[in-house]
């Protein structure tokens, strides 16, 4: 605290009026209301309007954190990009011109490069309504490479807010609609980011893939958090043998390479002979595999959180204000909920935020190896990247198949920035 606070220290036994004196007399010259000094009960209101030193409103811990966070530009940018990504994942059905697994058998559109959108009229050279041409696929007679040629006789303008009854979707599982932000008339197609080996639109698939990849990190963190809070809390609160057993378990888990453990667990749980898989039914639905991936990720990731929570509770128990609450007669649950856990909240929030990108990456890795959510009717960014490894593909000819790596990069980066910002905002030593 600053020196002026010491100056405000009244000598003990100072009279009531003396205690109130600085409030009313200090900045009084600037305030004409002084003669109308209100009763002490109202002095709070009065105090706010008065002068520069004692009048500033007192800030709660939450507001200080928010104000600090707002000054962290990188974290703010990261936060807004994440908001943008999550909103577009929620409205993927609306933003995507095509369905997740929509493709055409003939003429097929496999490995199409991003469709060229024309902004100018080729005849006049003037700006015009954006349009695309239909594309015809041929093979180069010598190299057998696919060659795409635009058939320039018909222009297909890009239309906005088109209804496509065959491709209806649900938003948050609640609202059904078939309205799409944009589209072109058949037989032309608009593939902003190209297509994969089956001719599925990559742009649409990245949007839908975000629904899985972005939520799986958050859900897995909750599973890990639940396990970590339960086991770490038990270890920290009871100590002794409970503590020893749980912490040795954490160490055993930590000793196994993470990706290896993920692969073993994911493949074990998918094994048809496994009783758990039998309970699910041999053919797991996409929702089940999704859930399974979340559980596997959370199960692998709880150890670190358990350690953090255990140590936080151990150190918080030694704080004088916990002792003070005990001396005042507070019960154990009151001490735990009002004093111990709130003091760990800031660390836990930061730790959770910073572990989300790890889960996103782990999910990507699992999906890339084919152990994540199945391809049947879901997509995730890792799964989309898997397309780039399909048989007989040279990536230099289909570089757009690497596009799903970009949202992964952004999601991981932004979660890290957000976590960094939160950590700095909660850290009183970094206050500016």
């Amino acid at each position, binding site marked *: *605290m*600053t020196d002026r*606070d*010491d100056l*405000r*220290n*009244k*000598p*003990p*036994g*100072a009279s*009531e009026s003396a*205690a*109130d004196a600085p*409030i009313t007399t200090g900045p009084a010259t600037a305030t004409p209301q002084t003669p109308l000094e209100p009763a*002490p009960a109202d*002095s*709070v209101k009065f*105090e706010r309007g008065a002068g520069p030193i004692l009048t500033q409103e*007192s*800030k*709660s*811990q939450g507001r200080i954190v928010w104000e600090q966070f707002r000054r962290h530009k990188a974290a703010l940018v990261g936060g807004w990009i994440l908001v943008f990504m999550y909103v577009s994942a929620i409205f993927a059905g609306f933003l995507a011109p095509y369905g997740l697994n929509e493709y055409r058998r003939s003429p097929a559109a496999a490995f199409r490069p991003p469709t060229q959108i024309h902004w100018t009229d080729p005849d006049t050279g003037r700006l015009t309504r954006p349009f695309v041409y239909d594309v015809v696929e041929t093979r180069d007679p010598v190299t057998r490479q696919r060659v795409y040629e635009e058939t320039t006789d018909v222009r297909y303008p890009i239309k906005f807010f088109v209804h496509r009854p065959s491709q209806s979707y649900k938003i948050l599982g609640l609202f059904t609609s078939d309205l799409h932000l944009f589209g072109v008339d058949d037989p032309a197609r608009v593939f902003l980011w190209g297509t994969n080996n089956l001719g599925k639109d990559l742009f649409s698939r990245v949007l839908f893939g975000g629904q899985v990849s972005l939520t799986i990190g958050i859900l897995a963190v909750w599973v890990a958090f639940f396990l970590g809070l339960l086991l770490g809390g038990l270890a920290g609160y009871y100590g*002794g043998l409970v503590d*020893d057993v749980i912490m040795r378990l954490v160490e055993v888990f930590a000793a196994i390479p993470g990706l290896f453990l993920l692969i073993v667990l994911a493949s074990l749980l998918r094994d048809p002979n496994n009783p758990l898989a039998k309970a699910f039914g041999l053919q797991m639905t996409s929702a089940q595999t999704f859930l399974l991936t979340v559980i596997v990720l959370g199960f692998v990731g709880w150890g670190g959180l358990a350690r953090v929570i255990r140590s936080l509770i151990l150190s918080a128990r030694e*704080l*004088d*204000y916990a*002792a*003070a*609450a*005990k*001396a*005042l*007669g*507070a*019960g154990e649950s*009151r001490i735990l909920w*009002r*004093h111990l856990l*709130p*003091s760990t909240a800031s660390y836990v929030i930061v730790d959770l935020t910073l572990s989300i990108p790890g889960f996103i990456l782990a999910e990507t890795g699992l999906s890339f190896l084919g152990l994540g959510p199945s391809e049947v009717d879901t997509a995730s960014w890792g799964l989309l990247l898997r397309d780039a490894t399909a048989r007989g593909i040279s990536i230099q000819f289909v570089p757009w198949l690497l596009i799903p790596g970009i949202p992964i990069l952004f999601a991981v980066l932004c979660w890290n920035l957000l976590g960094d910002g939160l950590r700095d905002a909660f850290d*009183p030593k970094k206050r500016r």
Partner: protein
Amino acid sequence: MSNQPSKDGNGAATQTGPLLEVKNLRKYFPIRGGIFSRVVANVKAVEDVSFNVQRGEVVGLVGESGSGKTTVGRSILRLIEPTAGEVIFDGVDVTKLSKAHMREYRKRMQIIFQDPFASLNPRMSVGDIIGEAMTIHNLARGKEREQRVAQLLERVGLAPSHMRRYPHEFSGGQRQRIGIARALAVNPQFIVADEPVSALDVSIQAQVVNLLQDLKEELGLTLLFIAHDLGVVEYISDHVIVMYLGRIMEIAPSKDLYANPIHPYTEALLSAVPIPDPTVKRDRIILQGDIPSPINPPSGCVFRTRCPIATKECADAVPPLVEVTPGHFKACINR
């Protein structure tokens, strides 16, 4: 008065005996080691401590770091469970009370902590910190609670409007006042002040000590004032207990102790108190070495390893506390 428990206290407060009797208090902290966390040693923080605190008096408890004075204070309130011994508060041994019973006694005995930065929950407003006890014990709620918090704030020299603020907005001295107000919220009879001024600036120390003195007189409080500095204790205490390595070295009425210290450890402590007069020259007794490890304390008199007058006999037996003049006890065989 602080006396051997066997003796009756003389003086003013004899209506119903001493307010607090500590009898043969021991506190060992186990040190665990090995794979199976066996107890490999004990830190003997408090070893066979007995003393009385009479109603309405201030007893100072002094000793250097590691002498066990804070452990004594916290054991009395059962913030630490004592290993052995009795803490008899107003005729009841609180160490044997159930949790529910203990809760009633927590309204009667309170504590003020040393570090005003660690003892206030940074996430609670001052009003909530002081008012929490009233909520816990259903003493007051709503407007009534707010009024009582305001009264308490004024009583400790702060403004009622401070109740909406948070601890980080206050200086060390102000925070200590908040801590005092929190202890007063349940109208206790007895307060353990655990080095309440050690963490404060010298300029603020006197203010807080004065405040405690005033409160004691106004509210008829009984205080156990823990400090490592005899100078602070001299001013406020009626009796002083000197501890070293978990044991009591000397108990004496305040004036008696300062005028006529008996134990060589007390002498050494007193010689370290600065005198605010540069012309006065005094022979300082500098103790050699550090306080020995409480895991493995010296045999016999624990002070003998640093004592200027130690003899062979000191190692043989723990010297008993002997009354020299009325109310003045010493644990030394050579004085």
